[in-house]
């Protein structure tokens, strides 16, 4: 049981994305990443933006769609052990506000990146592939789907 716990929430991970201040913290950390990349002298602006986009999508993919379960023990005997964090948000309810925010933010970043890379074809390919890799798992149809059995257990 959640002995020693102050609430009756079975899996606190489901509420983390709804907490006050996390969206702002997320935007600020993307901003910090971008500024850090900008300060490296030998990257041009388009490269910096593509790198921001790619690194952001990579980290998002790893944290939201690869890592499964909870970093603490839950009282439901591990019902969510095989679910990624994205699938755990709000106990699997689709199209809640956090899910919408996290789906829209890579798209916004993609649009900014496309603008700043002047729609260069090479950058376009890289950025679009990266965007698709992070948008597809967020579709409601992909809830619980493990392609080719990768990351199943």
């Amino acid at each position, binding site marked *: 049981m959640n002995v020693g716990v102050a609430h*009756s929430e079975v899996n*606190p991970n489901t*509420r983390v994305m709804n907490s*006050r*201040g996390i969206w702002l913290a997320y935007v600020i950390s993307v901003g910090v990443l971008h500024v850090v990349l900008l300060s490296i002298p030998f990257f041009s602006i388009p490269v910096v933006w593509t790198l921001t986009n790619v690194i952001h999508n990579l980290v998002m993919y790893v944290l939201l769609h690869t*890592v499964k379960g909870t*970093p603490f023990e839950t009282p439901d005997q591990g019902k969510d052990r095989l679910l990624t964090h994205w699938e755990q948000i709000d106990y699997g309810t689709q199209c809640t506000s956090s899910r919408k925010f996290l789906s829209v933010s890579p798209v916004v970043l993609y649009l900014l990146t496309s603008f700043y890379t002047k729609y260069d074809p090479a950058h376009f390919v890289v950025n679009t592939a990266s965007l698709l890799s992070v948008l597809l798992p967020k579709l409601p149809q992909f809830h619980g789907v493990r392609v080719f059995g990768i990351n199943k257990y």
Partner: protein
Amino acid sequence: MANPSAVCNGHLHHHHQKQNNLLKSGIYKKNGITKGMKKNGISNGSLYKKTFIEHFEQAPMYVAVLTFLGFGVGTIFGYLRDFMRAWGLEKRNIAAEREQQKDFVPLYQDFENFYTRNLYMRIRDNWNRPICSVPGPQFDLMERVTDDYNWTFRFTGRTIKNVINMGSYNYLGFAETDVNALKTVTIELQKYGTGICSTRQEMGTLDKHVELEKLVAKFLGVEDAMVFGMGFATNSMNIPALVGKGCLILSDELNHTSLVLGARLSGATIRIFKHNNMQSLEKLLRDAIIYGQPRSRRAWRKIIILVEGIYSMEGSIVRLPEIVSLKKKYKAYLYLDEAHSIGAVGATGRGVVEYFGMSPDDVDVLMGTFTKSFGAAGGYIAGKKDLVDFLRTHSHSAVYATSMCPPVAEQIIRAMKCLMGLDGTTQGLQRVRQLGKNTRYFRRRLHEMGFIIYGNDDSPVVPLLLYMPGKIGAFARRMLEKNIGVVVVGFPATPITESRARFCVSAAHTREMLDTVLNALDELGDFLHLKYSRYSKSSHPELYEETRLELED
């Protein structure tokens, strides 16, 4: 905290409270710091005989952002350390499987241990500290040090004496070792022995239990009571006896684990309403009565509302008058768990029922524990004689669990007699008054200093918000250096942004002890930048009515 009316929720001059016209019954009132001009017998009648002020102030946004960044940094370092441990660059301190079992399927998923390994272990020295005296207002700690960053501890052999105890639930100060006070307990121990080894229904009902139950019933002003050996088990074993399949349980969001477990074991449908939020409760009640059971649309066999008197993590007091009027209107039952409030609130220590000036007949099932205010162990359920007789036959605890042991029963009897004045002194009443004074003083000073404190002004549980994970460890350690023992709690026991330190004021704390603690908090608050409150009491005196200030002495 979703509690619109009585909440000082960060908006100093908002003249209208958003939701109040929703309830047609008009029982909702505008309470709170912004509405300072409170007199008795206000607009819609006197549901509340005195002002009900609760605070759940939100910290500024930058605090929440920094908290998440703190957790983020902790997570990054956690992954780094895990990587180093996996590749042998760092020694592994945690228990591991034997070499021969390396190819077996692992017993535990190591990600579930991530938080414990990487975040909890760093500040582990602030919990489970061994003490070597009774946990009264001061206690002695065994000094322990760690050579490998909290993976193992070793005792130096010294004891740290007279650490001020701000963590024990010792509201009335009955956790004492005074030989004279415990004389009757020693006599009973010699007479009856330590254990009973039988259940209530077989051979375990002694005259001590009957005496105790009569005394509890008299104390609370009800017809009958039944006592159980364990406070947690009182909830978890009796709720299944009272409700079953086809019944509806409406339980508060922040109810204790024992209530949640009892509700789950009963097989009834559980619906959760927002903490202390009466519109949420009324909406659930109306939906339950209008729509009935989920698929068959039949009426519910029983609707029971589970609430606590004082919530131990928030320090908030239940809105009993409103709940009672709701329950009467919609014909539901009320189960009140007074674990923290019995003995601690109310003019003579009879709990929230007395605090609000209501009659104990309004509450159907009065439950409480003897662990907090009476310095003993166990719990009770009190109410009408029919209810208690039913529980005597149908409770799981009565059939399968051993009954309360006699020395503990005697301790409760002596504490209760002291509280009721039956031992011929006014010591009990003095303790209750001292607790009230200490509570109000402590809370007022903390507000003035500028900390964010949750909860009702009259509740002896004082959560002080720390927010950031780094400050949890720093706060507890520095308080120990100043010889004060505190309890700190963080995620996942609290919401991720709301880690806190929880103080439990006791009647046994003297003014000097409280002043020591307050001065230490003042210094520490400046050093750790914990004074987030944007509405310190002293800077806005016009918002506080004169009558409140008269209570301080």
